[in-house]
């Protein structure tokens, strides 16, 4: 009798993501799928709204990465107000947004590493689930946990100072920003009481990277062989090939490193990317038009960014980048657990960028906005913590949104997450008669590596369980667990 295993994180409103693993009579995996329910009609909801409301409006999408949506929308609307396609803002306008963005990257990457990744590393995939979490880290590795808390807090404070507030910030507006950074705010971030200052944040980012590298040295076999599969990779890069998380051109490389998308302007994204619908998931499957639906899928996020860019324009992160690239002799890295490594290099890069920006006197200038000839349509792309985020809007003659299209980072990673789940499911479940918590955790680890945003926008007390259901080929529930 075949069996179906379902791993189902349920949320109240946002829909839910779940994993189903179908086993045959010999307990071998015949199929696995990650189903994700994403934003329900949000693009439709934008229609008819005045365009200037959109950067605030889109923050309703997500409680985890509202800043990324805020900035991607603002970038798209820069085009509509005639402020150019990423390079037309005033220096203070662009640099305040970059500061906001790197505050977001810093806190998000720190949160992922300390809250979601480190418990697996510290306690192992088969570790006691009762302590394999951030509370367990706090009990046994207090210094590490304190660093995670304070790094996240620092990034959140950067966001509050640049966006105006933590919830529904208004900092980025079409054509620029609505505030600069005061000297007092700058000095707080530069020279604040220990540990909330940028030098400490850089030191801790390096410490997190050293921690990972130390773990890697002792667990190379696991890190190098967990969910490894070839993929194309896509991200924004600066025109000279440098990593640029705020703005750039679209570049993609294939599994061997050959360039397959050659520095395309963001406004032309729809010429190279399309989205496929499959009947078993609400989440679309983006693909490169030139390669078709079967071969055109790609990975985004930290691993992809380090596979696509040629260098990192800050010295400490560049040094780490060179060590990291040497592991694969400069070729694209396809090892899923190296996403943690790549994420920590970006964490360090963001800390360095924040310091450079804080020392830039442009942040205290007053020419906050610019505008030009109004356009009907605009596209804004940004490298969000989880990968490339696309916002595309068209307005009518009444300045109302007529069309909106969003491709979020987790959607871009739909196919690679499915492949990672399949890889791990086969290695963990094949031939096994019993399903252990550790086996299921390995599947989650594969998903966690991508840091997908499944739990955003709303929440409620007690409404975020993880449900695992074991079903036979007749549809009978054999076992069901919630945690």
């Amino acid at each position, binding site marked *: 009798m075949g069996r179906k295993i379902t791993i189902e994180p349920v949320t109240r409103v946002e829909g839910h993501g779940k994993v189903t693993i179908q086993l045959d009579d010999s307990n071998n995996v015949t199929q696995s799928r990650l189903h994700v329910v994403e934003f329900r009609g949000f693009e439709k*909801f934008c229609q008819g709204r005045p365009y200037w409301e959109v950067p605030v409006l889109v923050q309703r999408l997500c409680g985890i990465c*509202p800043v990324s949506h805020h900035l991607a929308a603002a970038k798209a609307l820069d085009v509509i107000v005639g402020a150019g396609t990423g390079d037309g803002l005033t220096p203070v306008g662009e640099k305040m947004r970059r500061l906001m963005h790197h505050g977001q990257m810093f806190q998000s990457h720190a949160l992922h590493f300390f809250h979601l990744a480190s418990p697996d590393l510290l306690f192992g995939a088969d570790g006691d689930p009762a*302590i394999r979490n951030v509370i367990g880290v706090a009990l046994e590795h207090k210094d590490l946990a304190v660093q995670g808390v304070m790094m996240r807090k620092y990034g959140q404070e950067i966001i509050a100072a640049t966006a105006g507030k933590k919830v529904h910030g208004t900092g980025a507006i079409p054509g620029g920003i609505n505030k600069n950074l005061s000297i007092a705010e700058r000095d707080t971030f530069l020279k604040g009481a220990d540990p909330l200052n940028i030098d400490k944040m850089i030191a801790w980012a390096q410490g997190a990277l050293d921690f990972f590298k130390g773990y890697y040295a002792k667990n190379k076999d696991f890190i190098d062989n967990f969910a490894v599969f070839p993929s194309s990779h896509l991200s924004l890069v600066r025109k000279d090939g440098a990593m640029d998380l705020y703005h750039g051109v679209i570049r993609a490389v294939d599994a061997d490193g050959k360039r397959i998308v050659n520095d395309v302007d963001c406004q032309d994204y729809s010429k190279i990317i399309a989205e496929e619908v499959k009947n078993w998931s609400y989440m679309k499957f983006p693909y490169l038009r030139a390669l078709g639906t079967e071969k055109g899928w790609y990975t985004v996020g930290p691993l992809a960014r380090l596979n696509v860019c040629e260098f990192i324009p800050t010295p400490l992160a560049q040094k780490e980048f060179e060590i990291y690239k040497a592991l694969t002799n400069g070729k694209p890295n396809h090892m899923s657990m190296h996403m943690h490594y790549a994420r920590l290099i970006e964490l360090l890069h963001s800390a360095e960028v924040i310091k450079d920006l804080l020392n830039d006197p442009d942040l205290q200038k007053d020419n906050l906005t610019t505008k030009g000839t109004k356009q009907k349509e605009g596209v804004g792309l940004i490298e969000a913590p989880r990968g490339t985020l696309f916002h595309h809007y068209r307005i009518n003659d009444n300045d109302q949104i007529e069309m909106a299209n969003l491709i979020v980072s987790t959607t871009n990673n739909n196919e690679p997450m499915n492949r990672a789940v399949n890889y791990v499911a086969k290695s963990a479940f094949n031939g096994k008669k019993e399903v252990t918590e550790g086996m299921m955790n390995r599947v989650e680890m594969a998903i966690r590596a991508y840091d997908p945003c499944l739990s955003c926008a709303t929440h409620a007390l007690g409404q975020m369980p993880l449900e695992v259901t074991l079903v036979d080929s007749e549809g009978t529930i054999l076992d069901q667990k919630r945690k």
Partner: protein
Amino acid sequence: MKDNKIYVYGFGNPGRQDDGLGPAIIDKLENENVPGIITDSNYQLNIEDAHNISQSDAVIFVDASIDTEEPFSFSKIEPSAEITFSTHTMSPESVLALCKDLYDKDMEAYVMAIKGYEWEFLEGLSDKAVNNFNEAYTFLIKKIEEMLKGHTFPQQHGSAENTI
């Protein structure tokens, strides 16, 4: 209890109708300049909130709830290490546990869960939620006053399940 030592923390997404009940409570507390408290709000609770609340002697978390009875419940909570591992958010109990473990602070803590009904991509509370909001706010003000005086507050309203 001394002034400014009660941390009142509303969380939820104001862009999803009744999910904004928690932040709406905080907005009203701030607009009315209620003395003796520290207010905060965010979309979700997270690890840095362990540090934020650690400077206080008591914390009241205010959230929307789909499950609670009308109009609201008010419950004392204890630290708990139970974590929904694959998500980014944390529960009030896990924030308390992190606060206790990292900052050696074992504080008095409550959750006010206000019944909500509508959760679409809209700003503003539903009419039914507004009624619950008003009752919850009235209760909360009295509760804060009693806590600041250091007195217990009798279980006399709504669904208050535990008292100091």
